[in-house]
C-alpha cells in the first residue's frame, strides 16, 4: 500500500523542494519505487534540483487535462531508475489544477508507486490546497527563524482545518554555532510553539548549494552533514528509530578567524 507525503511550509525558501528531492532520492536509493510530484505550477524547480530540466516532454497540466496519460509525463531519473519526476507546467499557474484532479491522479499513481511525494508551493492559496488534498502525511519544513516558525504554525492550523491530522516537523538550515550562542531559536523554543513530532533536524550546509548547482541532491554525498540528516529522515520514514545527529560545530580556530574578519 503506497504512502503519500506532502512537503509544505507556508514560508518560501525554507527548503521544501530541496527536501522533496533529497527524500525522494533517499527512498529510491533504498530500493523503493518513488514518484515526486511538483505542484508549484508556474514556478517549477523540482526538475532543476534533480538535474532533469532538459528531459521534460509533458507536465502535470497535460495529465490532469487529459491530453496524455501520466506515464507519458513521468521523467525517469538518470541514475536511479526507480525514481520518477512528474513535473509541472512553467507556463500555466496554480489555478490550473484543483484538489479533486490531484486526488484522482494520486489514486492512479498509488497502484504503481511505493511512495508519492508532493512538493507543495509556498503560501496558503489554491496551490497549497491542491497539494495537500491527496496526502496521508504532511511534513512541515521550517527554519529556526521567527517568521518561518510563525508561518509553519499557520500552516499546521490550515492542515488541521483540512482534516490532515498526521503531521511531522522537519527543522532545516540549523546553524549549530548560532544556536549555541543563543542567536538562533533552539529545538525547545520551536517545540514550545509548534508542538509537533519532529522527524528531522537538518544543518545548514554549503554542500546543498553546490549540489543544487549540479542538479545532484546532497543525500548522495557521504561527507555532507545535511546529506546525513536527510538519510536519517528517510530511515525514520521507513520506521527505523534513529537518534538525532550531534552537529559538528566550527572548531575554535575557525571561530577565531570569524572574529578577526569582522
Amino acid at each position, binding site marked *: 500500500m503506497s504512502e503519500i507525503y506532502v512537503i509544505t511550509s507556508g514560508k518560501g525558501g525554507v527548503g521544501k523542494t530541496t527536501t522533496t528531492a533529497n527524500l525522494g532520492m533517499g527512498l529510491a536509493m533504498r530500493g523503493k519505487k518513488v514518484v515526486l510530484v511538483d505542484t508549484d505550477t508556474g514556478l517549477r524547480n523540482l526538475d532543476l534540483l534533480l538535474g532533469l530540466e532538459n528531459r521534460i516532454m509533458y507536465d502535470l497540466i497535460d495529465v490532469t487535462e487529459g491530453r496524455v496519460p501520466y506515464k507519458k509525463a513521468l521523467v525517469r531519473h538518470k541514475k536511479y531508475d526507480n525514481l520518477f519526476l512528474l513535473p509541472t507546467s512553467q507556463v500555466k499557474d496554480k489555478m490550473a489544477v484543483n484538489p479533486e484532479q490531484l486526488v484522482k491522479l494520486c489514486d492512479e499513481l498509488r497502484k504503481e508507486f511505493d511512495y508519492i511525494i508532493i512538493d507543495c508551493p509556498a503560501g496558503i492559496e489554491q496551490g497549497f490546497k491542491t497539494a495537500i488534498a491527496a496526502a496521508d502525511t504532511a511534513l512541515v519544513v521550517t527554519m529556526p527563524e521567527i517568521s518561518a516558525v*510563525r*508561518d509553519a*504554525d*499557520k500552516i*499546521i*492550523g*490550515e492542515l*488541521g482545518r483540512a482534516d490532515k491530522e498526521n503531521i511531522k516537523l522537519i527543522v532545516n538550515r540549523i546553524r549549530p554555532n548560532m544556536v549555541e550562542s543563543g542567536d538562533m531559536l533552539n529545538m525547545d523554543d520551536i517545540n*514550545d*510553539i509548534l*508542538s509537533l513530532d519532529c522527524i528531522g533536524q537538518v544543518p545548514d550546509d554549503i554542500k546543498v548549494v553546490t549540489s543544487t548547482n549540479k542538479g545532484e541532491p546532497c543525500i548522495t554525498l557521504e561527507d555532507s552533514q545535511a546529506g546525513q540528516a536527510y538519510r536519517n529522515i528517510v530511515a525514520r520514514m521507513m520506521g527505523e528509530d534513529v537518534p538525532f545527529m550531534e552537529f559538528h560545530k566550527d572548531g575554535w580556530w575557525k571561530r577565531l578567524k570569524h572574529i578577526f574578519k569582522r
Partner: protein
Amino acid sequence: MSEDIVKIKGTSLGLQLSFAPDASFEDVRANLLKKLESGSTFFLRGTLVLIPRDVFRGSERDELQRLFHEHGLICRTQRPVSEEEQAAKMQAEKRPQAEVKQAQPEPPAAKEELQPQEMVVINRTLRGGQEITTKSSVLVCGNVNPGAQIIAGGSIDIRGTCRGMVHAGAYGDSTAFIIADHLMPTQIRISNLIARCPDEMEKTDRAERASIKDGQIVIEPIER
C-alpha cells in the same frame, strides 16, 4: 411537516441542528427564522448552536450564522456526528490534554464564575490565523499561539501558554478576567481597556491572572 425541516437535538455542547435532506436553503432559513422569532425555549440567548458543515455552501452557512447572531446565539459548524461519536467526544473532553504541564484541579474562584453550559471548550492548541469569537466564556486546553485570537463575552482560561491576542468581557463585562499558565500575549483586552505586554517577555514561571482593578488592567500571579 414543516417541523421536520429542522431537527434539534440537545447535547451538553449545545444545540445540534440537522436539516431534512431534501430541504432547500430557503425552507431551512424560513423555518429557523420562525422558530427564533417565536421565542421558543430552545433558543435562549447565549446558547451555542451547532450546524452541520457540509450541507450548505459557505455563503449560506454565513447567513445562518448571522441570523443566529442577531438573536443572541452563537453558531458554529461541525461535521455531523453520530450518537456514539458524540458520546465518545464528550468523554474525551472531560479529560484534560496530555500537553498540560501540571495536572491541577480547577481553581475554586473560576468554578463559580464560569457556568458550564455557557462555556466554549477548546481541546487543542489554537494556531496562528485561527480565531474564536463567542459571547460566553472560553476554556482552552492547549496553547494560544502568536497570530491566534480569542474574543469572548465572558472570561478566558488557558491551560497552556498564551502568546496570541485575547479579549475578555468583549461585550462590556469588566468583571471578566484572563488566566493562563504562561501569560505572554501580544495584546490583552478586557472590556474596553487594552494592555500591551513588554517587548522583551521572558517566559513566566507562574500562572497569572489579568483583571480590571481601579480602572486598569492588572496582572497578578496566582496559585493553580
